[in-house]
């Protein structure tokens, strides 16, 4: 029956006059955001029933309204003849932005906060899996705690869909995705639809496994669920303080963060029995190697030692590299260089096709090879040097896109840093905040290693970080295209110059 209803809705949508590609994609994006928020709200409402149930009715009712609005909007769209890749990318931005706004509305409706800016910041931090938090979780009911962690879980899933099922099909980094059916193998993403299914087939079981692991080491079922959702999505929201006091919980979190930062392609190959040659993957080797090197440096630059020291260092490193943002107290004798080491770690060292933010190892490898090629060309200006990644020649367009992405990434980091510095943050914290927000990597540390509470920052500073979080979560390009598209639409609608000329013309007459 459900299938019949949706087929009918789809048929009614296709029967309408086709909309323009940009308008249809925007509407679909908003519809997707509404649907995701509806699902999240209803689930949070049901979760609230486990506790006092005070917000359950409100959350479920709001979820139903959002769902209906989403379906209604979806059915209104006249399917265009062709949807441009740029508009698909812009639509993902609108989907994420809509989700942020609706989660903020839920925070406001349930009274989790009374301030619009706080609600928006918390929602953006959740959906983008950043883990900057301004709401004290100790005062929240089960429903809101679920909403908070669930927004991260949905955000993590959205990031995977964007990275594996959207961007490669829109002309980005196609060489790097697992699409080939060569030799009868089962790739992760042969088509968009199958890719989304496969992502769900991995994401949900991994989340359940982590939940069970947390439960086995003594975390309560509900707290374990929240923690699992935050860990697998590389989100980083935690409940009340003291979550990671137990070493066993730390070990579970370490393994889960390592998994979450690993490419889904690796997990997929393990799942379908294509593990042969997996350890030879340069990405995986670099990913694991970075953990080892960073732990050694962290131990060398602090007074920590023994198994406890290694565990705490590994926890801190895995949290940074996977951009999860779980934070322990600083290690003993934290050296000045340690937070500086963690900054570049969270920007580049997660693997492609994972829920982590940042610039990703694969792209850095491409940049490194580009740098080496430039050196070769300095010596042999006429040489034709091709760059190989994973045994295949990388397309020059892909390399250009990576270079531009790096340019835009740095521009967003420095732009955000400048704005928050102008709004009153000190220079070191401003640089760190810019990197953390763009890499969606959670709490900022001071130079002595202590975690800085974002509530100590002014409201304008917090709001200035929201665009960076969104840009970072969307891998920059979709957000830039959405902004550019919106600017073009506004410019075409307003046509200020033409109106001024017309007004001047009327004045002359």
């Amino acid at each position: 029956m459900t299938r019949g209803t949706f087929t009918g809705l789809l048929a009614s949508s296709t029967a309408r006059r086709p909309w323009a590609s940009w308008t249809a994609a925007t509407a679909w994006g908003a519809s997707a955001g509404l649907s995701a928020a509806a699902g999240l709200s209803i689930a949070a409402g049901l979760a609230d029933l486990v506790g006092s149930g005070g917000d359950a009715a409100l959350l479920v009712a709001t979820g139903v309204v959002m769902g209906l609005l989403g379906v209604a909007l979806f059915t209104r769209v006249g399917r265009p003849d062709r949807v441009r890749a740029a508009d698909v990318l812009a639509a993902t931005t609108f989907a994420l932005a809509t989700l942020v706004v609706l989660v903020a509305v839920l925070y406001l409706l349930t009274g989790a906060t009374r301030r619009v800016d706080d609600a928006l910041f918390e929602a953006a931090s959740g959906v983008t899996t950043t883990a900057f938090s301004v709401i004290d979780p100790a005062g929240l009911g089960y429903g809101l705690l679920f909403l908070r962690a669930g927004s991260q879980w949905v955000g993590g899933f959205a990031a995977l869909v964007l990275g594996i099922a959207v961007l490669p099909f829109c002309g980005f980094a196609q060489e790097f995705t697992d699409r080939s059916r060569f030799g009868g193998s089962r790739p992760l993403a042969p088509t968009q639809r199958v890719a989304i299914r496969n992502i769900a087939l991995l994401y949900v079981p991994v989340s359940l496994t982590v939940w069970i692991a947390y439960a086995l080491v003594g975390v309560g079922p509900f707290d374990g669920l929240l923690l699992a959702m935050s860990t697998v999505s590389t989100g980083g929201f935690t409940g009340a303080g003291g979550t990671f006091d137990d070493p066993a919980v730390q070990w579970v979190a370490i393994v889960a963060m390592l998994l979450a930062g690993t490419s889904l392609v690796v997990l997929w190959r393990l799942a379908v029995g294509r593990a042969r040659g997996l350890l030879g993957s340069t990405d995986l080797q670099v990913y694991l190697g970075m953990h080892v090197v960073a732990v050694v440096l962290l131990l060398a630059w602090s007074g920590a030692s023994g198994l406890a020291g290694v565990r705490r260092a590994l926890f801190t490193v895995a949290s940074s590299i996977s951009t999860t943002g779980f934070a322990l107290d600083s290690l003993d004798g934290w050296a000045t260089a340690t937070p500086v080491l963690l900054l570049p770690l969270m920007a580049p060292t997660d693997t492609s096709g994972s829920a982590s933010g940042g610039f990703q190892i694969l792209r850095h490898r491409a940049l490194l090879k580009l740098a080496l090629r430039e050196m070769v060309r300095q010596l042999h200006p006429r040489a034709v040097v091709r760059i190989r990644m994973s045994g295949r020649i990388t397309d020059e367009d892909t390399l250009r896109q990576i270079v531009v992405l790096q340019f835009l990434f740095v521009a967003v980091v420095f732009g955000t840093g400048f704005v928050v510095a102008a709004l009153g943050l000190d220079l070191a914290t401003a640089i760190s905040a810019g990197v953390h927000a763009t890499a969606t990597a959670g709490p900022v540390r001071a130079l002595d290693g202590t975690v800085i509470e974002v509530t100590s920052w002014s409201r304008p500073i917090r709001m200035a970080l929201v665009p960076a979080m969104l840009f970072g979560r969307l891998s920059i390009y979709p957000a830039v295209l959405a902004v550019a598209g919106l600017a073009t639409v506004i410019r075409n609608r307003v046509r200020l110059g033409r109106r001024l000329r017309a007004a001047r013309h009327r004045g002359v007459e």
Partner: protein
Amino acid sequence: MTVLHSRWVTTTGHVAGIALLFVAAGMSLGAVIELFDGTEAPAMLVAAAVTAVAGAGLRYATRPGTIDRATVFTAVAGTWLVVSAVGSLPYLLAGTFSRSGVGPLIVLADALFESVSGYTATGSTVFGSHNLITDQGAGILMYRQFTQWIGGMGIVLLVVTVLPSLRASGLGLISAEAPGTGGDRLAPRMADTARHFWYLYAGLTALIAVALLAAGMTPYDAVAHAFTTASTGGFSTHDASIGYWDSVAVEMVVMIGLVLGALSFTLHGRALATRRLVHRKDAEFRGYIGVLTCATLLVTLMLATGGGMGPARALRMAAFNVITLGTSGGFGNATGPGSDGDFAAWAAGPQFLLLLLLVSGGCTGSTSGGVKIMRLIVGVSHARRTLRGIRRPRAVLPVRHGSGTISDSIVERIAGFMVVYGMLVVTGTVVVTALGTDLVTAISGVIGCLGNMGPVLNRAGPTASFVDGFSTPARTVLAVLMLVGRLELFPMLLMAVAPYRSVRRSLRHRSG
């Protein structure tokens, strides 16, 4: 043939030998001044004699031939290393950096740092409250100013100007030393172009000296500061730098001089030849002036609203410091620590803007450092082209620079440069912080030294010394970065290729 007779050895020796003769001339100038006003004349004379003998020895013992690209990089980078090392002799012989409680290795490191900072026209200094500039002799200070002048336009450019035997390889050598000037010729022959550049440079220096004299400086100070203004170097003969005069007129002259030094000398040459202001048609010039103007206005606004200064005072402080860092000058107009001109004591907003200016630098074909505005313009244009290409996948979109287009090969070269630059900044920052520096001082120090800027933020600001901000190992890393940045990354990074090939060939020859 042994390694010692390899082309890279003979070419490097030849170019470095002639460069040392110029260095010896600078030391002699300092010695003469020291004879009249100072106590270190013997040390300066000995340094000049040793340098001249070494230079002449290298010049006449070696003979350059036809050279390939790898040898060009080795020759240029080797020359800069030799000049920087030998250039520290006067400081060592005069005991400039000797002080109680400091070992000889640190003294050696400080002398090398000051020499490298001078020849690369960086302007970072290890003088400070522990070792005042004003305690030094007039001759040694003039030599210090001269190092920036000779390094500002380029030592190898100077060598090519005077050496007929190098003319065949001149273009390669000049391109390796300063990529911006190599392609923009003012004359059909490269040696003539080099000569034109030096004439322009000398003329600009003389003009600035006269203007500074008119603004109230003594003849000695005017000449000394003209050397470091035209070269966008930033060394001063006073501890408070330009803040010593606290004069709007002096600051105006320095600002104009720095901007002229940071503009393309090719444009200056063409303007003089055609007697027209050809600058305004140049996209890089327009972009550069736009960047300086916007940055000045923004910093003025932030200083006037949050810095407790009146609008006029804020404009003066903003304009001077934006220009001095935006041109890679590195002068300061602070009258003391915490004064209005001490940008290290400003709020974080304007400091962040100055940090961005440390990256951007001046125009190609100028004496300034940094990434250069042209590369940033091409970078932005390339990003726009890529984003447009996503919206219109079938469109053929060129990368535009002004009214022209830039070929993809140049865009790739610029992209490669930016990638290497970014990697050096990140790696350098981690290394310098690991050597005991805080984040802001480290990142600004690395960017500043890579861009040959001078004073940087936080603990190495305009009223502080690099000794205050960085440990001795960290300063050594920064000195290496200055050389890497001065030669626009690649020559220094690739200087080992030719020796490596030569040694490998030699080993094969022996085993064969």
